[in-house]
């Protein structure tokens, strides 16, 4: 029983990171119909930034959390303005290819600027302390992760549901043309979605690096894809769906590794994408889906 609970806790901790990533993907997809393949690479940059901040001196943990969040938020806006904005109104495929290009660009700038080699990522000591609650072993980082996700979720849902920009965001995600027509500055709305989503990706970078203790320039691509899977499971376009989808994916992935014989653990990624196909075929709108999946 303890083992099951432990796996559940681990799954939720991993799922929280997927959730943070999925939120940005789902917001941007909702409005622009773009899967931002570079989203995971923004997370990678966040991880590197966190490493720099932590390594530089004795610095309060708050900064290790804040710096990647803020800087990557701005970086996301820059990416939007330079690479995606010129493609407004272009076919989907053009945006898709561009975002692949951006992903590669970010990866290789890191390779060039730093090194292609993985480096270790050392969390400040206080975050690695672990303790037991009801037989479940958790680190401070796990707690921080779960806590941040809960707080951010509440904040985000207030923003989306109550603020003027949030309302415009929902309208744009339902019909971009109509939103533009009634006088909404959709570029502001898109910018806001990129800033928010990328900021969460930056934060996810810190949490991911802290969890695995190692970072490299290519670390972001797969989590980015998996976060998209999470967004699809939850129902693309839905923020609540992104969070729930992230949690489900985290728990499923950890469960897959934790409960099947070890020979199977090499297939965990295959399992995740198998899950994607299953969801797309059985329930293409996901759990909370509102927008229609493009189907043939």
């Amino acid at each position, binding site marked *: 029983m303890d083992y099951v609970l432990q796996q559940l806790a681990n799954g939720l901790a991993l799922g929280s990171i997927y959730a943070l990533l999925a939120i940005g993907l789902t917001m941007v997809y909702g409005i622009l119909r773009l899967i931002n393949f570079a989203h995971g690479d923004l997370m990678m940059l966040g991880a590197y930034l966190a490493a720099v901040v932590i390594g530089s001196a004795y610095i309060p943990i708050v900064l290790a959390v804040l710096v990647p969040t803020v800087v990557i938020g701005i970086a996301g806006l820059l990416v939007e303005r330079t690479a995606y904005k010129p493609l407004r109104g272009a076919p989907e495929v053009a945006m898709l290819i561009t975002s692949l290009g951006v992903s590669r660009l970010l990866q290789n*700038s890191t390779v060039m600027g730093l090194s292609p080699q993985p480096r270790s990522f050392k969390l400040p000591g206080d975050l690695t302390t672990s303790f037991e609650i009801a037989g479940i072993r958790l680190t401070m980082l796990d707690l921080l992760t779960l806590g941040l996700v809960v707080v951010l979720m509440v904040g985000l849902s207030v923003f989306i549901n109550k603020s003027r920009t949030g309302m415009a965001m929902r309208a744009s995600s339902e019909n971009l043309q109509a939103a533009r027509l009634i006088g909404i500055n959709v570029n502001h709305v898109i910018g806001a979605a990129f800033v928010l989503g990328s900021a969460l990706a930056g934060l996810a970078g810190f949490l991911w690096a802290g969890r695995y203790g190692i970072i490299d320039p290519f670390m972001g691509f797969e989590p980015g894809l998996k976060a998209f899977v999470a967004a699809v499971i939850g129902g693309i376009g839905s923020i609540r769906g992104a969070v729930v989808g992230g949690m489900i994916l985290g728990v499923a992935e950890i469960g897959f590794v934790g409960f099947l014989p070890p020979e199977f653990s090499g297939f965990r990624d295959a399992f995740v994408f198998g899950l994607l196909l299953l969801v797309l075929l059985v329930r293409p709108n996901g759990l909370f889906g509102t927008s229609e999946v493009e189907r043939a």
Partner: protein
Amino acid sequence: MRRAIPVLAGLVLLVALLALADMSLNSYYLRILGLMGIYIVLTVSLNLPNGFTGDFSLGHAAFMAVGGYCAAVLTMPLVSKELLLTELPTWLQETVVPFPIATVAGGLLAALVALPVGLVVLRLRGHYLAVATIGLLIVVQGIATNWDSVTRGARGLSGLQPHTTLWWSFGWAVVTIFVVWRMAYSPFGRAMVSIRDDPLAAACRGVRVFRTRLVAFIVSAFFAGVGGSLLAHQITAVTPSTYSFDVTFLVIIMLVVGGMGSVTGSVIGAVIMTVVPVLLRDLERELDMVGTAQLVIAGALIAFMIFRRQGLMGTREFRLAGRFGPKASSPSPAPDQSQTPTSS
């Protein structure tokens, strides 16, 4: 008959050039030239789904892996097999298949895999299809990395014979171009393009949409498998990273540079984007900055999408002289000429 003359002349010229290259170039340049032929096979075939039916697949490398591993297991010399692949079933353990047959077998196996895969992923379109096909690639990578008894996991299969000569890689390039051209400029091709432009309208006009897309996907996978085998027998080894996402990405760039929906564009794109990375890697060594080549390529791709989305050729075809070139029914305009000019 008259149409065949310039094509034949072109083939003779190609043979002459290849013979010349074969005699005069050193092995480094021969390798690059051989790679060019392989990339032509890959790009021209990826154009079928991505350019003609509008199903943007990112899983080409997955089918290459299927074909490559299959052919590698078949051609591997008996000594190597005894050493490396001890757990194969005996009939496989004891057979060595000639390279051409193994390559065709690799292509067929890839096509066979593409059938059920296509039945599933082609229910999707757009970004969903793109992610699902990346998913396929990740699944295949997972299998290649973990199916030790056949693939030897991350160590891969080494000690293959360097069967892929210039003649084989360009021979297959010619075959691929021929097949794809015949498909593209035929009633089948018009069906593909009409699906790309408007699947609903195509269905209304009686085009069998799903079947057409599936056939394009499977034929594309066949040549990807062939390309995978050619690549394996050029580098004389296969590992999971031989068929990583990087390969898909490079082929996508070739496709985009040439122009999606143009067969000759794919050839041009493959030629250019085989040479450019080589030059860039020289530059990279000169500067001693790893990543430069990839960075420039990624930047160029973005610039292409912003400034010349239709690629060099768009959906047009390159012809020496309209009158002599193979006659082609002109396909409809590119889907990417933005139909709604919006101010933003």
